[in-house]
């Protein structure tokens, strides 16, 4: 304990003792006359000290032991999480790279699926993708063909123009579903 703190403790104890004596035996209080100025000074010092204590509290935070989550298991991924994450990302540093990844992955999967279902060559499959003839879903077809096929209904065209969600996302999702549908139909 530093000398200053020891002094503060001594002052505190003496002041407390005096205060209690005066309180219980008011006659002694008559010997000490406190001026108005002293009272206000002490009051203001107390208020300033109060402010200091508050600001110190603001600067510190409660420290508690942290407890683990023993009831939970390791979180494990589901295949395809990466694709969903890439799609969910709207902006950020690697936005363009992620978009590119989504396109490449979809294209590879679609080519595989079409060659398998149609039993055709890869070149033919790519032609089908470009022409948008590989699926019945006009929105999915538009992902590779870049525009809605002529056969798309007016309603679909209107919805494509009006929809608030980004075109790329919408088409990518529909294309992913369409590719999966190709397998589900034939797996039976």
């Amino acid at each position, binding site marked *: 304990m530093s000398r200053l703190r020891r002094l503060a403790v001594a002052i505190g104890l003496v002041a407390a003792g005096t205060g209690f004596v005066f309180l219980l035996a008011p006659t002694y209080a008559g010997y000490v006359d406190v001026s108005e100025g002293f*009272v*206000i000074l*002490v*009051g*203001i*010092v*107390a*208020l300033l*000290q*109060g*402010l200091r*204590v*508050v600001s*110190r*509290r603001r600067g*510190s*935070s*409660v*420290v*508690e*032991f942290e*407890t*683990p989550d*023993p*009831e*939970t*298991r*390791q*979180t*494990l*991924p*589901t*295949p*395809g*999480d*990466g*694709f*969903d*994450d890439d*799609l969910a990302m709207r902006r950020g540093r690697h936005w363009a790279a992620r978009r590119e990844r989504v396109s490449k*992955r*979809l294209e590879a*999967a679609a080519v*595989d*699926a079409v060659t*398998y279902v149609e039993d055709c060559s890869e070149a033919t499959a790519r032609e089908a993708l470009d022409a948008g003839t590989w699926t019945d879903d006009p929105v999915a077809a538009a992902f590779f063909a870049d525009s809605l096929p002529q056969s798309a209904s007016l309603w679909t065209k209107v919805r494509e123009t009006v929809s608030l969600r980004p075109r790329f996302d919408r088409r*990518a*999702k*529909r294309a*992913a*579903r369409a*590719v*999966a549908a*190709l*397998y589900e139909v034939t*797996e039976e």
Partner: protein
Amino acid sequence: MTASASTGSGSADADADVAVGDGAATPDPTAESTDRTVETTTRETRRWRGISAVALVAGGAGIVLRYPSLFLVGVIGVAYAAYARAATGLSMSLAVERTLSDPAPDPGDEVEVSVTVRNEGESTLPDLRLVDGVPDPIAVTDGVPRHGTSLRAGESATFEYAVTAGRGVHEFDRLLVVGRGMSGAVETRARVPTADVLRCESPFEPVSDVALRALTTRHAGRVETDDGGEGVEFHSTREYRPGDAISRIDWNRHARTGELATLRFRQERSATVVLLLDVREEAYLRPDEDRPHAVDRSVEAATAVFPALLDAGNRVGIAAFGPTEAWLPPGLGTDHRARARSLFSSHDAFSPEAPEADFYFNVRMRRLRKRLPEDAQVVLFSPLCDDQVARFARLVDAHGHLVTTVSPDPTGDDTPGHRLAGAERAARITALRGAGIRVVDVPAETSTEAALASTGKRWSR
């Protein structure tokens, strides 16, 4: 401030008597081992910091403005500051007992856990926060493994919860106790060691013959050969040559014609099969948090296939395809079966938790090639959700081993990405089949038995 735990009455292994705190406990020299030591830490929470501002502000304002009631409020501030200041670290002396409704359940069974904590000390513990050390790979399915209570001397509290057992030997971690005094200004943390183990082994029930046919039509079993020789089933006869065993002489014919002929039986040869489990981090996949992951399902399938192959007279071995090495050379017999069983339930390579170590494909591939007996056939268990494992299957096939893949399907169908991954997996399976590798797809919620049986039927048609 570390005190040892001493085994209490010695009644049960699961009991842990501990005494912690400043000098309250004398370290017990008979303590079993170092890991039964209670670690304690005490520190101030600082939550009461700033409480004296109440006294200072009320007192200062009271005296300047001459409001006696306000000045008196200052007393309350002083009282709480003293209340907080007076707090010291708790000396806790606790006896912990954990009971499991079934210490050796089957995978998927629900086990009820009940934890009783008794205050063995002299003083009241006003604020105890308990967190049980549920083993990591185990999920709590009912109740909460946490409890907040306060215990007078000699009093005890119990809390209960239920877990769903997963394959493996799971040791319960220490019980975490955070104790506080009345004001909560000082906190003491203790980690109380316990010795409870949940031993959950695969039942090791073989799949039926029908199911096994999916693996044996081309593969294993008593592989019948067209070579005549020693065996059971009659094949043909040939002229006697000196040196033929007397037991193989066709005595009927000798009686009839006087000629000596030797019987030839259909030669049988047991096959060698190695079960290869894909346990790379990439194989730890599941369609959602409630369902078992692909490695658990692979192990489940392998533990059903292993005894079936063994019963059919094959030499069966086990290997892991992942960062941790596991290898059981092909063998026969009861001992071999027991070794396999313990390997599946407790070897690190087949841990229910995904590995963190790095995996080097080429290194692992080389070692496997060296180890696989030349004539070994391989049954690969993998979710087939990446291209590396497909490449692996083709390489093994190219090295002259017959490869059959049993593939638990971990894909979901709730998002476009999950569906796409399902399609990619289907493409991978198609490509493997095109390369002459058999693939048994085991969809979610389908047992290995059912998947194998239906595939076996299709193949034998």
